[in-house]
């Protein structure tokens, strides 16, 4: 699943480690999220949404919507 995490983080001038501390996860996890290797479970997705003050669906793009956007 694609997401806007890296853009949102960089807009705020945070390192991956700083974001990891704010979310209570490891830097490795933030890196995996940003590169799309790991889709977060709901509790983490809500923490991310709350932290950036945006709804989950504006941060994460489900695969079917990616297909529509790309076609």
């Amino acid at each position, binding site marked *: 699943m694609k997401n806007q995490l890296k853009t949102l983080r960089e807009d705020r001038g945070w*390192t991956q480690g700083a974001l*990891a501390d704010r979310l*209570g996860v490891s830097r490795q996890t933030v890196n995996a999220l940003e590169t799309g290797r790991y889709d977060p479970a709901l509790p983490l997705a809500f923490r991310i949404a709350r932290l950036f003050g945006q709804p989950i669906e504006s941060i994460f793009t489900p695969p079917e919507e990616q297909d529509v956007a790309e076609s």
Partner: protein
Amino acid sequence: MTNKLDSKDRSEGDREKSRAYQREFWPGILAYTVVLIGVLVWGDLDGNSPWRFLWAVLPVIPALWIVRAVLRHVRRIDDYQRLLLLQALGGGFAVAMIASVTLAFLEIAGLSVPGVGWIIYGAGMLGWIVSGAVVGRR
């Protein structure tokens, strides 16, 4: 700016979890090593004393401390790290099982391999380490 933000340094939370793990893990390893040396020096494992069996299982006590440290670490880490750990453990388990079955067949075929338990232990640990390195790099 972007380069600085792409820093691969561990977060403060990562460091704190790692410190907590080290604090609990290393005393266990130290105790295990001391008990192991004690068993090898005074245990008389290849002798005739009935106490040798008690000596042989004595390292289980500090080993349980290590297990406790690992389990507490698993509770501290996040879901993604648990997923990586599970994949690494799965790799180690598969290697240990394959080694175990292979050595069992060799034994049936008439080849007596000394220290079978140690070989399986070593294979499993090596499988865990290698799998951990592979899944961690993805």
